[in-house]
């Protein structure tokens, strides 16, 4: 059963201008996106800055107003007004990009982690401390840390504190928005491993938002590539990396630096070739507004945004 089902999601921001701040147009940050995530899986949203990947995550959790479309979480339509927001909020949590600014510097770790508990569960002081202790242990920090403040921790530790806060209510789905991109390579590894561990332990589902294809390849089961608010390609890791169909996907993949120095000329030539194809066949992949076409199935799980039928356009 899919735990999150997003259908034709649109999030548009008005552009205001002129003397009277009239809305003259909209930025289509997310423009008709559909996907679903199976319980216990990790779904990756990949794209460059401005692609709308973060807006999707923020829309799903309610930080951004949804223009139209349906978001069904755990069987409940969370876009409808009479859905139980409280229940949803409990089961849906978010981890943010910057471990330095997403924790309140004036609060102790105890208060930071206990905050969601205080909002949703009536616990005695003793129970609360016990739960925070358990959570800290789960994220690999000792309970002596409870009375410390965020600045006393390293970036990786802070990100784990953020995770402890996110899992405090035993949510079903965690939206992780670039959770490791502010971290050093070695710390990045630590946080990624840890996210995988607690996923197994708690049966979590992730919506993993990232610009880093290397990490996505390592971490996700299924991914989608976004470009200017639309999907250009969606599929399993194998399908996207071994058989990319859309020129934009090819471009992204060819841009990943190769860790083997002997391949550098090959990579350089590959990038030149992809760029050539991008320039020459641009209109096979993008419409007159420079946006991706609707999705077409390549296989059961693999979808690509291509023109319906190139002949017909003739």
């Amino acid at each position, binding site marked *: 059963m899919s735990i999150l089902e997003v259908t034709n999601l649109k999030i548009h921001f008005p552009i205001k201008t002129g003397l009277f701040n009239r809305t003259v147009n909209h930025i289509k940050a997310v423009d008709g996106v559909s996907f679903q995530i199976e319980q216990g899986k990790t779904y990756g949203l990949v794209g460059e800055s401005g692609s709308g990947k973060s807006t999707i995550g923020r829309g799903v959790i309610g930080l951004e107003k949804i223009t139209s479309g349906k978001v069904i979480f755990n069987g409940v339509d969370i876009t409808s007004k009479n859905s139980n927001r409280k229940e949803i909020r409990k089961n849906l949590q978010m981890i943010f990009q910057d471990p330095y600014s997403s924790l309140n510097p004036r609060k102790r770790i105890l208060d930071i982690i206990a905050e969601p508990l205080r909002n949703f569960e009536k616990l005695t002081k003793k129970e609360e401390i016990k739960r925070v202790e358990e959570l800290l242990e789960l994220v*690999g920090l000792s309970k002596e840390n409870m009375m410390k403040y965020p600045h006393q921790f390293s970036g990786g530790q802070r990100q784990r504190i953020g995770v402890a806060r996110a899992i405090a209510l035993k949510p079903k789905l965690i939206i992780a928005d670039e959770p490791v991109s502010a971290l050093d390579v*070695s710390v990045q590894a630590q946080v990624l491993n840890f996210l995988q561990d607690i996923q197994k332990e708690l049966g979590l589902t992730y919506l993993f938002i990232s*610009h880093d294809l290397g990490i996505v390849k390592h971490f996700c089961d299924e991914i989608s590539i976004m470009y200017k608010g639309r999907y250009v390609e969606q599929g399993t890791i194998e399908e996207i990396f071994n058989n990319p169909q859309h020129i934009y996907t090819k471009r992204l993949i060819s841009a990943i630096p190769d860790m083997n120095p002997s391949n550098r000329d090959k990579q350089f030539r590959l990038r030149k070739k992809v760029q050539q194809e991008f320039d020459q066949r641009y209109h096979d992949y993008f419409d007159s507004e420079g946006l991706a076409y609707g999705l077409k199935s390549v296989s059961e799980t693999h979808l690509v945004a291509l023109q319906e039928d190139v002949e017909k356009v003739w």
Partner: protein
Amino acid sequence: MNRKLLEVKNLKTSFYINDGYYAAVDDVTLTVNENEILGIVGESGSGKSALAFSVMGLHTRAKMEGNIFFNGKDIVNVSKADLNKMRGNEMAMIFQDPLTALNPLMEIGAQISETFILHRPNMTKKIRKDRVIELLKMVGIPRPEYVYSQFPHELSGGMRQRVIIAIAIANQPKLLIADEPTTALDVTIQAQILDLIRELKETIESGVILITHDLGVVAEMADRVAVMYAGQIVEIANVYTLFKRPLHPYTRSLLHSMPTGGQDKLHVINGIVPSLKHLPRKGCRFAHRIPWMGAETHEENPILHEVEPGHYVRCTCYKNFSFQEDESKEA
């Protein structure tokens, strides 16, 4: 073998923190040859950027010891006026964040022209403008005549980084220092900028110091690589050697922790990078991150050993280093 362009000898750059000076760059020795890219890799706090700023003489409140010989002059002891004659002329720098590295109130053209005004005072206004437009074309900016009179905020991040590169190469410097030139950019833009830097290096035949935390970038770009940890170079080698036969435990750990696909779990290095104030100043600085290696495996005063021609490794602990299962437990 190309001619030596830059020679850094026992450089120590210290900053004043609260109660005294602490060295961010500690006893670094390296050379850069003409027409070569030297990659410097390290995590935050390794001192790689402090090293780059030292070479450019850009630290305003640091204590510098040792020597940096460039074109026969020692940057550490040169006068401010002489340094200004070299900067932007014989050596130049590309910065990390294109969004903040340009003056927001100055037209693009004026910002590039400034390097000519400073170093080619006899150039006429007309020629200067032609040269700037030529440069903009060279770094791949479309409609250069138009961009000439635009302001930074009107350009995308990738375009701004091209402008910064144009400023850097304006006077065809012998030495180009690129400090994380693509960290703030999207992947596809990163590839374009890196390709551009490589092409430009070929045309102006300069030596390049490429500073990055991204091992992938180094693998694609560098001829030689220096790995920095806690202010020191722990390993330096030809790029092929370094990725094929890394020796120092830190280099090996770092490579091991990169997601390359196929691993079930990523490698995690034990412990954390100590802050500048709490760096171990004696013995092997990496020792506490590999605690299962006994004290006898380290040198008392670790030095760089040449293990094969051009391949240097600090300390002796690399000799019988092996990874330990699950290092990730909290220290």
